[in-house]
């Protein structure tokens, strides 16, 4: 799915956790504090360096040659227009739904640059549907995302359509082929 959303990143959240925790532990005797959720809405991600995924989420690789990066990180190249929880963090993978969910047959399409071969690929952001929100690795990127009046290029629509349940669980980024107009 594709609600506009907050990015949570391991590096920054770790900083937040450690900072606040240490600070508070010295301030409030006997009070334990933890940061359950530190949402991030970057105003300008362009200036950032590579990120390192989400806190409490193990890194992955796709296992494919020529497919660099970590599918549990919002910065993974296929996710250039994704909006939702990453299925790779939810028991599925970048291309597969978690057990017990159903992959939406229709969806919206993005075009993402693979830094390994410099090619633009067509990515289909199929939603996985039928269980409640996964809640891990919420990621929103909007390269070439268009408003809702062009649905096929919009990531704010719940694409759990044509599935037995329209309840959104998480999002994949499935490679359809090389973009021809590049």
């Amino acid at each position, binding site marked *: 799915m*594709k609600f506009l959303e907050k990015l949570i990143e391991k590096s920054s959240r770790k900083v937040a956790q450690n900072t606040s925790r240490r600070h508070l532990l010295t301030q409030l005797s006997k009070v334990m504090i933890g940061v359950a959720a530190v949402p991030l809405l970057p105003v300008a991600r362009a200036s950032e360096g590579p990120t390192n995924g989400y806190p409490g989420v193990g890194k992955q690789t796709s296992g494919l040659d020529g497919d660099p990066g970590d599918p549990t990180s919002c910065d993974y190249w296929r996710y250039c227009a994704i909006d939702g929880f990453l299925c790779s963090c939810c028991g599925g993978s970048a291309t597969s739904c978690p057990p017990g969910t159903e992959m939406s047959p229709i969806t919206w399409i993005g075009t993402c640059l693979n830094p390994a071969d410099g090619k633009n690929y067509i990515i289909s952001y199929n939603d996985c549907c039928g269980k409640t929100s996964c809640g891990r690795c919420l990621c929103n990127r909007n390269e070439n995302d268009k408003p809702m009046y062009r649905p096929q290029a919009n990531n704010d*629509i719940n694409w759990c359509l044509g599935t037995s349940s329209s*309840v959104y669980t998480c999002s994949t980024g499935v490679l359809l082929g090389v973009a021809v107009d590049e």
Partner: protein
Amino acid sequence: MNNRLLKIVSALAFASLSLLVNAELKPEPIPSVTQLPADYPDSWIFAHDANFHALISGKVAIIDVAADTNEYKGFVDAAMMASFVESEKRSKLYVGETFYSRGTQGDKTDVLSIYDKSTLLKTKEIILPKANRGQMVSSKYMMQLVNDEKYLLLLAFTPASSVIVIDTKTEEIISEIPIPGCNLIYPAGKSGFASLCGNGGLKSVQFDEKGEVIVRYDIDSFFSVDDDPLFDKPVYIGSTAYFMSYKSRVQPIDMSKDRPILLPAWSLVTDEEMKENWRPGGWHFAASDNKRLLYVVMHKNGYNGSHKFGGEEVWVFNTTTHKRVKRIILKNNAFSIEVTKSKTPLLVVNNVSMTLDVYSVDGEFQRNITVSDTAMPIVLHSGK
């Protein structure tokens, strides 16, 4: 008797009572349930928590953004990418929502839930027979009241798009109007609406008391969806809808007549600001006040894909002169904003931490309000 004296007297009375009968706090009644006024004060807003972490459990909270105590007035549920609109005339709240018989599975039921504003109890639900309610990240333009609140228009999306017309008096569905190739509901004319289309055009219809289309206009493509699309979330000032583009153009459209009229476009940015890539963005990132000013969340160094990340400033424009009249530097970056319709209007910012920062319209910070510990109040509706 002035207040202070009154306090002293009652304190003395309490003290003497205490001496006499060993005063105790009195037993309190059970059950007790709070009610709200039928007409809400104009500093109350509706904060729609889309609750992405549990979409089946969203809500719309009612909040007095001018209050430092008892600011949270109550809420209604709003399940699964719901749509919301307030009726001033009928003192009702409308929520378009979706349920499954087993939470996330089983039989689907799409409904329009109707609440009494005073009790926040559901007075009626209208079941959508085709269960085709559009589910999108909640937007004001998924549901609108038109023709002096005579009709409620509710978006359907399967992904074929149409508009369900409900008579607010009989509380019954009277028709469904297809809008192929177009999407969303922008009130237009006396009894109709317009929709933006995938080709960069606009479709508009007027319907009669049976919900049947009596006037239809198709306006050809007037902007490039590929190069610089208009955001689908305009701001209405009177009957003019101010659409803004990713790259800071403003396209006002006069929606007062059956046929929408494109008004001259202008820009939110100077040439210099354009070079710095100042752009509008966020979710419901723009609003207006009762002085016809346009408030827009802006971010610097915009780029392809930055249009939904919010911004660090709110720029305020005179919509007649097209001049920027204020530039508000926010305490916390904004994602969505709203301006109350109150005499002393307040600027309410859903910041990127998903709590509400309240400012004067001059940008003076007033207070922060938490909608809930896990809320994502991404759509703010000022009271009508």
